[in-house]
């Protein structure tokens, strides 16, 4: 069987890298003494994976880890053990058990919901309206490491709509971002797009980015939760 957990990456550890996050979860699984399955071979690896990578600095309340087991366990008991073995900043929100041959979580994520808060109080209403109305908004994405390679993407393909709320000293944006087998786009690049297209001057480097949810999307475009979950108290 496979266990699936919904876990968090809270504010206090937002700056650990994806790789560090993955390693931390691996060690927690070992500390929790869950009967993890390992790959064969000279250098066996624990069979666990995360549903999607998260950028450094991004807080998330919807990270999903899938762990293959060698023997069945009671999911809630496993979640309790896992919870105790995790550092501050990673909480277990939900758990679910599936057959070993169920499709990998990584392949089913179809979209994510974000909240971005920036200390900025300019007028955003017009930009939001224009963005939402535009049939296409292009953004030139710098491919990491290879500086020459750039990729032009249509932001609207990933993020059809945004909404904004403004408070005394900050602006909060909310939007859904599509995830495909060929990738997705970074939440921070939406801010870059808005700055480029509408001359907003949002302080991108100060943006507080939170992933609120990650979900599956069916062929009709309906959203479904990642887990048929057993939600955990507290």
């Amino acid at each position: 069987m496979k266990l699936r957990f919904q876990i968090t990456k809270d504010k206090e550890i937002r700056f650990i890298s994806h790789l560090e996050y993955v390693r931390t979860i691996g060690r927690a699984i070992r500390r929790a003494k869950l009967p993890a399955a390992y790959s064969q071979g000279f250098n066996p690896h624990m069979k666990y994976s995360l549903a999607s990578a998260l950028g450094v600095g991004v807080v998330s309340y919807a990270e999903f880890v899938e762990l293959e087991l060698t023997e069945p366990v009671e999911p809630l008991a496993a979640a309790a053990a896992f919870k105790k073995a995790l550092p501050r900043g990673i909480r277990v929100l939900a758990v679910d058990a599936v057959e070993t041959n169920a499709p990998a979580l990584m392949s089913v994520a179809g979209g994510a919901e974000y909240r971005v808060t920036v200390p900025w109080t300019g007028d955003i209403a017009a930009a939001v309206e224009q963005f939402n109305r535009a049939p296409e908004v292009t953004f030139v994405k710098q491919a990491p490491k290879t500086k020459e390679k750039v990729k032009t993407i249509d932001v609207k393909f990933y993020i059809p709509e945004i909404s904004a709320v403004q408070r005394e000293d900050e602006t909060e944006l909310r939007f859904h971002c599509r995830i495909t087998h060929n990738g997705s786009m970074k939440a921070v690049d939406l801010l870059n797009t808005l700055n480029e297209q509408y001359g907003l001057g949002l302080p991108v480097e100060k943006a507080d980015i939170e992933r609120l949810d990650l979900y599956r999307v069916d062929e009709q475009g309906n959203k479904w939760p990642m887990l048929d979950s057993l939600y955990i108290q507290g």
Partner: protein
Amino acid sequence: MNKELAIDMLAAVKKPARYTGGEFGSIFKEDAEVRIALAFPDVYEVGMSYLGFKILYHLVNKMEGIAAERVYAPWIDMEQMMRERQVVLTTLETRRALCECDLVGFTLQYELSYTNILNMLDLGGVSVLATERGEEEPFVVVGGPCVFNPEPLADIFDFAILGEGEEALPEVLACYQAWKRDGRPGGRQGFLHRVVQIPGIYVPSFYDVVYNEDNTVQSVTPNTPDAPPTVTKRVVADLNKVDFPTAPVVPFGEIVHDRIMLEMFRGCSRGCRFCHAGMVYRPVRERRPEVLREIAHKQVENTGYEEISLVSLSTADYSCLGPFLDEMITDFKDKKVSVSLPSLRIDAFSVDVAKKVQAVRKSGLTFAPEAGSQRMRDVINKGVTEDDLLHAVSAAFENGWKKVKLYFMIGLPGETDEDVLAIAQLARKVQWKFKEITGKGGCQVTVSTSSFVPKPYTAFQWVPQDTLEEIHRKQGLLIEATRVKNISFQYHDGKTSIMEGVFARGDRRLGKALYLAWQRGQRFDGWADVFDFERWQQALKDCGLDPDFYNHRQRGGQEVFPWEHLQPAVNRAFLANEYRKAKQELLTADCRQGSCNGCGVCQRLGVPVMDWGSRAYDASQEKGFASLAEKMAGGDNLSYSLATQSPGLPQRGGGAE
């Protein structure tokens, strides 16, 4: 006080997780009565790999009402932003600024980390000079191997703990707690007069140094009856009776030594004459195998680590190593935990052990002959021969290894060009051995040299260090001599070795230059890309100091050294005799297997050597490994000096390069 590491700061720096803490196993004691910051004067990845602080963190946090928290040196990118925004340096746990702690404890691992100490104090809101520290400021305490000559830092720290901290630090903290509860009688001076009563405590301001006209030290004498004329180091008589951490902090990111560090024993009695650690950590005291296994099991459960590294100054010398390894491997096989011997710079190589622990991948092996010629190896009392090395590499080649790395020092006392060139010849001989055994060419040999730095409390404390010109010339000789197919040559920057030498055997007058160099921007001197030799030279000059006085002068037999009031308990007469024997190329046997050589440590400390070999295991079981232990002469001393010379260098001995 601004403590906020804002999103845009963390997003802009390299490795932001260095600064955010919260790792599994970290301990938060919000309302402790006494708080000590364990401050490591280098970056997080280096500091988190330091076993000493893992031990003290665990130990202190067990004490009622007392908290130990961690703080590391922010890298230059972060420091710059902190200074721009006036953000104070805090601990990782409860985010106390250093100036809000009761004590700030630095470990002195390496002379070239001293500027970072000044910098961290300054960033933490603590007055850098001890004399300027106000009543409300923390006490700055130092410990670690360089504490046997902390004189260049005498202006900076309030007091030092000499030797092992397991017993001494809790005593100091209890003393502080009592003083604080009593309403701080006598102020800062009052506390210093109290704490100096504890054995092993050194308060530099309680001593006056008088210099001769030739700038050597005439005397170091206490200026208060409370301070003893000499301070002798503390040691734990029986390591089995002190706590060893069972649930250390598990970092998120990769650190230099990212595994369980199981300390097998302290001290090394091999007696290599260049080795500081080999002298100041005596006597050898082993942990019992059953105690070690119990600790290992607990640590595996509590950390989730997949590797246990058996650490000490020369793990191959652990008296019960063979059977212990077998038990460990059996114990942990099903838990997918491997066992490695990190500091095993093997001279005579046992394929059995290497295979067993999988410390060594087929990619490469590291050996540490330390010197190229037999003559020089005898001078340094290395106790291994060319045959040992060739025998060892033969065994490796027969078992499929194709790459060898060889560690050497250049600039050892009495070294001739012939001795230097013997390094290249030895590398050639290793290649020939490969051809002889495999019938093929293509053996890759890497020759790596560091430049010898004479250290206090070694047989070579009297000798001049090679000048920079001489180091460069010798490196040049080797660059030429190693222009051979499949031999590559690496060497340490000679300039850092020169500055390391100045501080290693320096005196209090260097404090001014240290302060000036720091003010002019020196920090992270151990990092070659940041180190600025010219700025150091200028700082020394501007303080009227001559580096050659510290480095390139043969010191007299009767000369009083600046560090002699601080005692690791090794007799000066023993060291002088070792120096004499070095000049005569005579060997001194390991006292652990033979008779006492009279270094004086056991007698002066009243602590005997502890070796469990004969007792703990069936003799027949032990037999197969006796020869192993014998052959694996401890090249580990080098691994120590390398660890201190290049803090960024991951050194997983066993030779997995």
